[in-house]
């Protein structure tokens, strides 16, 4: 049978809900019987799990399968992905005209925020006043190699100018040297400054420069420091967001903390895949194209 992708997605989602409900029942029964709970993480999820590879499920249905079994993990992804997107323009040569256009688009499509360099915060704050779109800026960006005092000062200035969200880069060299106290205090300082001013703080780990152990450690430190999100990438490093990294970060920080995927996300499919892998925010420059594709899907 031929199914359009929206129907397929709904089917996959519905099937998953049923499986999740069944697994929860089973888990309850196992616990009562003194058995270990049914493991919920599929070790081969990345290769075969429907949340990472929705096209497998889709293809199976297209090929004529009338029943699918999946493991749990698939969250309900709102068709309206705009609400998850930080509409981003961080190029150093961005003009005022481009920034203005960014804000217009954000208003129109109701993105979560615009994400811009600190010099553009004041303008964006003015343009977006009353729109419901937040102003996200970057601190210690993109190298993360300024001292604690400087990052905090930068965060404070940005918030004074109207920023509601601060994406800071960790001290990557310190992380690699296992100077965890320093890394944590760096994050905590910017987080404190943000929270004292009703702003939220996202922590960019620059995953493409890190080993998996370092990614885990960075996420743990960010969580300990009280940050609101961990974020994969600056977009200026050697690599952008990957499903592997997002899933690893989500697994590390648990279900409550924010996970932002950024860097190289250009299509609606990639956006949905990141969200399904555990992201709750997406940093993208191609946001308009993404939501237009979402409407057509």
């Amino acid at each position: 049978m031929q199914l359009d992708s929206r129907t397929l997605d709904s089917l996959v989602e519905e099937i998953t809900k049923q499986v999740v409900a069944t697994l929860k029942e089973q888990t309850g029964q196992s616990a009562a019987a003194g058995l270990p709970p049914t493991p919920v993480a599929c070790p081969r999820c990345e290769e075969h799990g429907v949340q990472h590879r929705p096209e497998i499920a889709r293809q199976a249905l297209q090929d004529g399968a009338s029943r699918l079994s999946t493991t749990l993990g698939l969250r309900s992804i709102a068709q309206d992905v705009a609400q998850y997107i930080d509409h981003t323009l961080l190029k150093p040569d961005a003009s005022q005209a481009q920034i203005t256009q960014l804000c217009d688009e954000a208003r129109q499509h109701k993105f979560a925020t615009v994400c811009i360099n600190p010099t553009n915060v004041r303008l964006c704050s003015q343009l977006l006043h009353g729109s419901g779109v937040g102003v996200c800026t970057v601190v210690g960006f993109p190298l993360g190699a300024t001292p604690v005092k400087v990052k905090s000062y930068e965060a404070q200035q940005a918030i004074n100018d109207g920023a509601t969200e601060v994406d800071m880069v960790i001290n990557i060299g310190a992380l690699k040297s296992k100077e965890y106290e320093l890394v944590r205090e760096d994050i905590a300082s910017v987080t404190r400054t943000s929270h004292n001013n009703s702003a939220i703080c996202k922590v960019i780990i620059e995953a493409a420069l890190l080993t998996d152990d370092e990614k885990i450690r960075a996420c743990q430190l960010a969580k300990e420091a009280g940050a609101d999100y961990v974020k994969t990438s600056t977009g200026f490093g050697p690599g952008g967001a990957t499903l592997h990294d997002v899933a690893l970060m989500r697994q590390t920080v648990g279900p409550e903390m924010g996970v932002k995927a950024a860097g190289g996300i250009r299509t609606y499919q990639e956006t949905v895949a990141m969200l399904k892998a555990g992201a709750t925010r997406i940093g993208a420059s191609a946001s308009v194209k993404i939501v237009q594709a979402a409407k057509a899907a």
Partner: protein
Amino acid sequence: MSDIAHCIDHTLVRPDATQAQIAHLCQEACERGFAAVAVNEVHAQLASELVHGCGVAVVVAVGFPLGATSTRVKSYEAQRAIEAGANELDVVINIGALKGAQHDLVAQDIAAVIRICHDAGTLCKAILECGLLDEDETVTACQLAQAAGADFVKTSTGYGPRGATTHDVALMRKTVGRAMGVKAAGGIRTYQEAVALLSAGANRLGISAASSLQILLEEATRATGQASNGIELGEWAR
């Protein structure tokens, strides 16, 4: 002995640079007689301690590499860098403002940092990022930096779309005249490239750690016909 080491800022501004690597950088600079070590601000204090007394300056990058922080933040950063021991600051101009022809803003931004530098006896280099500019913008940026009192203009951050070219350097030298410093940086990997940029009018080169040693090795090889100055690249070869 090298003829060009004294023109080179021995540079490590990667975001994942560790203290151990900075220590290597400083040791090499002292041994080889580089003009300076160039580091991110988080390593300024360590570098300052390690090169103390060996005639090597400490260059710290500010507003780096995007130049898109406010004047207030660049100024604060500059002050902290100087307190930590910086002798020279390489500061990125507000590139967006330059391209938007907001010349006053560009000038005020760099002038604020220059004032802080000069009050402390520190040199200030203005980084233009030529790879993002057309020729007119490069000329304008040079003029604004010179009028604001910068000690050098510098071609690139090394993080932009391209590094230094002899064309950039020649244009900058022509614009600022003989007295002002011109630093070429970004993508300089061979002795030949280094010499070409110096010939085009640069009097300082920003070169990444591994490449600096490679260039001295090439220089020595040309001089004697065989590699003889005992440089080992191990730490930096990636």
